[in-house]
């Protein structure tokens, strides 16, 4: 299983980019944490997901 935004999902074998395409989000408005490394949505590394990978896909929100 791969942890995607806190949920375990069977995404092994897919690339990070494929997962973001499935989420259908605008890459210019997100950032991605792959394990402990953070990347702008437009600068994703080529990475084939494997068991235990942790992925967070985030965006900016209002906050104080």
């Amino acid at each position, binding site marked *: 299983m791969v942890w995607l*935004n*806190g949920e375990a999902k069977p995404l092994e074998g897919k690339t990070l980019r494929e997962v973001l395409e*499935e*989420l*259908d*989000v*605008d890459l210019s*408005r*997100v*950032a*991605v*944490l792959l394990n*402990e*490394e*953070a*990347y*702008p949505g437009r600068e994703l590394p080529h990475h084939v997901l494997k068991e235990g990978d942790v992925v*967070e*896909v*985030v*965006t*900016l*929100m*209002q*906050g*104080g």
Partner: protein
Amino acid sequence: MDTWKVGDVELRSRLILGSGKFRDFGVMREAMQAAGAEVVTVAIRRVEARMPGHVGLLEALEGVRLLPNTAGARTAEEALRIARLGRALTGERWVKLEVIPDPTYLLPDPVETLKAAEALLAEGFLVLPYIGPDLVLARRLAQLGTATVMPLAALIGSGWGVKTRALLELFARERASLPPVVVDAGLGLPSHAAEVLELGLDAVLVNTAIAEAKDPVAMAEAFRLGVEAGRRAYLAGPMRPREGASPSSPTEGVPLGGPGR
């Protein structure tokens, strides 16, 4: 011109605005302009599938420097993760460091904050840490090289005012050995902001008091004026309070119509 600095950046406005809780981006933008804010905080959150993300938010915040926060972090490790994501999203190395394990009082964790600050500085971040009114912690952060220290005036979002005044006075007294002191959290009225600036502290960070006002734009302007009033009063050198009354008019020559006194 009276300015202050965060890192190498010279700022004129001593009012940092939090972008939370505004009912829409239009009101937020107008409030930001009325506040004269040059720096505005933003949060980082998970996207939902097929949700467009911050459409309109960046546009509404155009022209100000974004200060991504680590809100939601309960540990140093979580704060690092959120900070890195904030930098990837905004391209901005400034981070408002907040590490808050306690969901009831929302008080910052001093140990985790210090740990996180050290790690973030090593990664090249410019760190603005939210802390309790603890001068010892502030000095430790200053030694590490944080860009500011941001002690609280009262609980986050409470609007209670400067409840920590006696301890903030120590920050004012020791100001020369500290980075800029930004009082964050708990301010409810422009007079509270004025009080902080009158002490000689550098700036305030305000969110809820403006966003939850009936008219946030008018309140933003009121806070701008409160901050300016407090700062000018500090620079003007306030009088020393004395023990009792002191007449403002001459005591001699009062025309009483009878024998002189």
